């Protein structure tokens, strides 16, 4: 089976040029100015962009255990619709993905039924309880790409140090959800002006910053490779910049919602603006955008966290934290950052593809001859509608629900197979 994509504006090594791209089975057979080889399927992409498939380092597929929120099939379908060809699944499933059997379950399900590649992140501590080191060595044999207690944070510094030492031996990066529980307290949103006005308990930025500071020091001492998840504050950016300058193996990610929204989004008590870490001040947001531009922040990750309406549609204090992100990420960032001229399309695509691959040491997703055919097509003149009946995710908890955003992923190929078309 051959597919020829004609005249697309193709992203290669940080640049866009008009090319033809020929897919044969799972691979890119050729990519050139003009390809005149007959193909079963020809796609006219003269008004479209061709990007490498997006890679998401941070997602919650809820499978096993909470499949009423999402499962591997619905989650990967949603991901494919958003242009993703690889997603990393966080281990806070039920039971927790803290052993090789659990890892193999996810791999098998994804291989049999998935619409994109699923990489598994194993738990850092058993049951993510922050008490004992999880079986990292066995899980590594099962193919995990990193370890993390995401959603939770190891509070005990001694245990964290030992986790790092242990992980180093298996070349496993540690992904850190930085949150000091005592400082975060019962906080619901950023401890800023909006929290004061709404009378909601605040989560201060320092709850994130003290853990980042601690873990940078621990990583320096243990030579561990750490990746800070979902950065939210300006001070966090500063600390990571400093760590990078000192040559430490520290990387980090930012979510679309932290790049585009600030605390003001919470004013209406919309629980789809409730997530951890919380949406922070406008100054924090601007600092995150600048850090993404200049590379201090390595990549974008969605933190796709599905919750059903009946869980979200309740008192703000009782609603769970988190929002979905697969199907909105590109359109949100394109319409809110690229269109207004704040971020280049080149950097956006890099931060969704090459950069996340580099963070976890995955093969670089280049569009080149011989490469795996993981790619997506985008029409920047079309809009992505975000309605509960258009979202493929089982859950609809998006801050952008009922909006239409500029830019649309019209087709996704994973391993040369069409996984989304619309």
């Amino acid at each position, binding site marked *: 089976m051959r597919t020829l994509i004609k005249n697309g504006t193709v992203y290669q090594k940080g640049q866009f040029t008009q090319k033809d791209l020929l897919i044969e089975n799972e691979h890119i057979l050729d990519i050139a100015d003009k390809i005149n080889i007959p193909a079963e399927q020809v796609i006219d992409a003269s008004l479209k962009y061709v990007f490498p498939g997006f890679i998401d380092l941070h997602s919650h597929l809820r499978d096993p255990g909470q499949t009423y929120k999402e499962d591997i099939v619905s989650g990967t379908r949603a991901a494919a619709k958003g242009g993703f060809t690889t997603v990393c699944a966080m281990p806070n499933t039920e039971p927790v993905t803290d052993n090789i059997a659990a890892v193999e379950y996810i791999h098998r399900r994804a291989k049999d039924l998935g619409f994109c590649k699923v990489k598994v992140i194993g738990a850092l501590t058993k049951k993510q309880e922050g008490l004992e080191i999880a079986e990292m060595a066995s899980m590594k044999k099962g193919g995990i790409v990193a370890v993390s207690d995401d959603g939770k944070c190891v509070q005990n510094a001694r245990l964290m140090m030992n986790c790092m030492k242990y992980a180093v031996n298996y070349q496993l990066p540690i992904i850190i959800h930085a949150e000091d529980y005592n400082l975060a307290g019962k906080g619901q949103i950023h*401890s*800023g*002006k909006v*929290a*004061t*006005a*709404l*009378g*909601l308990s*605040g989560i201060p930025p320092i709850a994130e910053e003290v853990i980042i500071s601690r873990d940078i020091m621990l990583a320096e001492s243990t030579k561990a490779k750490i990746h800070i998840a979902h950065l939210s504050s300006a001070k966090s950016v500063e600390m990571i910049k400093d760590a990078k300058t000192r040559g430490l193996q520290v990387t980090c990610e930012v979510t679309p919602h932290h790049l585009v929204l600030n605390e003001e989004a919470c004013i*209406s*008590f919309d629980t789809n603006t409730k997530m951890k870490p919380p949406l922070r001040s406008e100054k924090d947001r601007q600092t995150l955008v600048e850090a993404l531009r200049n590379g201090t922040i390595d990549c974008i990750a969605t933190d796709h966290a599905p919750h059903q309406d*009946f869980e979200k*549609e*309740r*008192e*703000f*204090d*009782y609603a769970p934290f988190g929002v979905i992100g697969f199907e909105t990420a590109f359109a949100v960032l394109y319409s809110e950052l690229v269109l207004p001229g704040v971020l280049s399309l080149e950097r956006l695509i890099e931060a969704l593809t090459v950069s996340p691959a580099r963070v976890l040491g995955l093969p670089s997703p280049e569009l080149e001859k011989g490469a795996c055919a993981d790619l997506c097509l985008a029409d920047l003149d079309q809009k992505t509608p975000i309605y509960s009946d258009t979202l493929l995710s089982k859950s609809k908890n998006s801050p952008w629900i009922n909006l239409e955003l500029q830019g649309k992923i019209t087709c996704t190929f994973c391993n040369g197979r069409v996984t989304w078309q619309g």
Partner: protein
Amino acid sequence: MSSTPQFLGRNVFDLDDYSADEIMYILEAAKGMKEINLREYKKIPTLRGKTVCTLFVENSTRTRLSFELAASRLSADVVSFQASVSALQKGESLQDTVYTLNAMGIDLYVIRHSSPGAPQLVHKHSGKPVMNGGDGRHAHPTQALLDIFSIWEKLGALNGLKITIVGDILNSRVVRSNLIGMKKLGAEVTVCGPRTLMPGYMEDVYGCKVEYDLETALKDADVVMGLRMQLERQTEGLFPSLEEYTKHYVLSKETLKFAKKDALIMHPGPMNRGIEILPEIADSQQSIIVEQVANGVAVRMALMFLVLGGKI
């Protein structure tokens, strides 16, 4: 000449939805209601056939009684739904509770809840006007209106008055709503309490002054309001002891020397005598604490009357 404010069907989530003119209109209406409350037969037929539901998901006897009395005196039928937060959390959601109540034909909801924003949720799912009887630390607009009414009745216009509020500002919904209302009417408000019980950005959000020293805060005050200080803040690690708090923040004859000579003394209740306020002040000539309670019924009558379609 501005047109008559329209209140029919409006929610009372907080005072930020109401202009200074509208607040004044409510106060005028409350004045009329207060007169009814002084009659021997304290009842008018104006809301006959309407049903008011008091939905109290957080314990409160005083506020609930005040609302229910207000509704009764306007001849509305009153049903009361009391649930502990834990029961609602375990079983039926607030949304389903509202669907159930709505099916019974409620015209107006009064809600008290520990979670900010709960009144908005009740309105969203009922489509009926909702009065906020206190939502967490967020807002308590009817308390603020009765406080403002009490000051207005004694001192006239609030414009230019110096009002000082002392105590646990962090956990007080009364303060937040009062700040919005009092600032709209032109008062200068100072809030005072220990730094650990003071939310951030108060000046930016409310345009008030923040003081940590009681004597400075009370200087030249026309009105002084004390707030309840709860023992549980001590175990939360927010201050060392009630004794130490009292030593630095109690309203007493001695500390009130710094305020204006006849400064009004207020407290939203319930009071901790001897902790945030001494009996010598609570029971003094300057104190209008008991009158605040009476005014509460009048203000709530006025609001229900206006929201459910009465005209002055």
